């Protein structure tokens, strides 16, 4: 990979012209104007997205575009690290936590307090105006380009500085990473306050409570579309409500036997009409 990155860095024709003219190549300009609007729109998606997952995916888009810009800016090593660390590790960690926490009902942009939202918007726009004006009025540096610094390839140049001038920082950062990993384990560790309920305990509790020990009856004797949503008929002709899965009952999606049976006219059934009408209302004999 190192040779690949080095060749990518050396193959960019931008480097020689940048120091002389102070302007980037046309190709880089086109790339920038293609990616910059996409990045800004995706970043705005973070502010306005109603679902947290959408916000996370728009941030992923911003970060991939940033990686492309890094490569264009003569930093191919950082571009690869950006994809691996940010989009590969950090944002996937975000998605994992999103799935763990679940989607909150009070999750939308609109639940922000009314006045607070407008004050924040004004402050944010003001901050942006100040920063942009500072950048635009700053003394324009004559860009010198990284052709000389990247002569041996970008990763080699970066490695010389990281393991040269910043070697102590590198050690400290290593300690920081280990500490963060241990800290995350400690923070998410849960002490077990009660005894764990396993299959054995569940079975014992069931027998002790005198509940049904056999499996529940299967639903859907007369169902035509989806067997799960119609109750089975017991030996007495009565529908067994508890044969329908609990989730469907809670959602109110179950159908009665009579409702399904109403579609079964004698002509629809053809040569085998039901011998007696089953409406779910029969007396128990």
């Amino acid at each position, binding site marked *: 990979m190192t040779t690949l990155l080095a060749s990518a860095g050396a193959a960019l024709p931008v480097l020689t012209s940048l120091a002389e003219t102070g302007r980037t190549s046309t190709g880089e300009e086109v790339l920038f104007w293609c990616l910059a609007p996409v*990045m800004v729109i995706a970043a705005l998606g973070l502010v306005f997205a109603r679902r947290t997952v959408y916000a996370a995916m728009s941030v992923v888009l911003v970060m991939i575009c940033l990686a492309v810009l890094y490569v264009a800016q003569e930093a191919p090593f950082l571009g690869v690290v950006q994809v691996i660390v940010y989009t590969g590790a950090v944002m996937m960690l975000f998605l994992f936590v999103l799935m763990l*926490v679940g989607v909150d009902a009070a999750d939308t942009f609109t639940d922000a307090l009314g006045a607070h939202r407008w004050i924040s918007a004004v402050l944010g726009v003001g901050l*942006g105006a100040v920063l942009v004006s500072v950048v635009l009025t700053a003394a324009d540096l004559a860009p010198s380009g990284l052709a000389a610094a990247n002569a041996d390839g970008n990763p080699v140049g970066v490695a010389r500085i990281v393991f040269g001038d910043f070697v102590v920082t590198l050690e400290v950062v290593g300690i920081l990473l280990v500490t963060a990993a241990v800290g995350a384990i400690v*923070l998410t560790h849960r002490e077990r306050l009660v005894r764990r309920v396993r299959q054995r305990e569940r079975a014992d509790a069931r027998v002790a409570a005198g509940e049904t020990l056999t499996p529940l009856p299967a639903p859907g004797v007369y169902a035509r579309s989806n067997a799960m949503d119609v109750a089975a008929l017991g030996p007495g002709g009565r529908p067994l409500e508890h044969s329908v899965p609990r989730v469907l009952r809670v959602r109110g999606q179950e159908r009665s036997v009579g409702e399904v049976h109403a579609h079964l006219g004698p002509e629809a059934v053809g040569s085998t009409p039901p011998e007696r009408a089953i409406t779910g209302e029969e007396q128990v004999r």
Partner: protein
Amino acid sequence: MNLTNYLVLATILFTIGALTVLVRRNAIVVFMGVELMLNAANLAFVTFARMHGDLTGQVVAFFVMVVAAAEVVVGLAIIVAIYRTRRSASVDDVNLLKS
């Protein structure tokens, strides 16, 4: 194209990240706003490295990425721990110290 355009893009992204931190109530989205601000700072670092012809800016951006990774791990662990006790990921619900 002047290299200043990259800096303007970085400031715009930084502003949007700050706006997210101010406006949104969900702790995870606020956290992603912080990440966006860090990324914008990285873009500025890389651009400055190119302006000065010195790779130190890229090295600093690299360290920012590493520290951000550590920060994300601890921050998300805190969010998960709070969610387990309070059943909420909203930054407004964490007010136990308020009396």
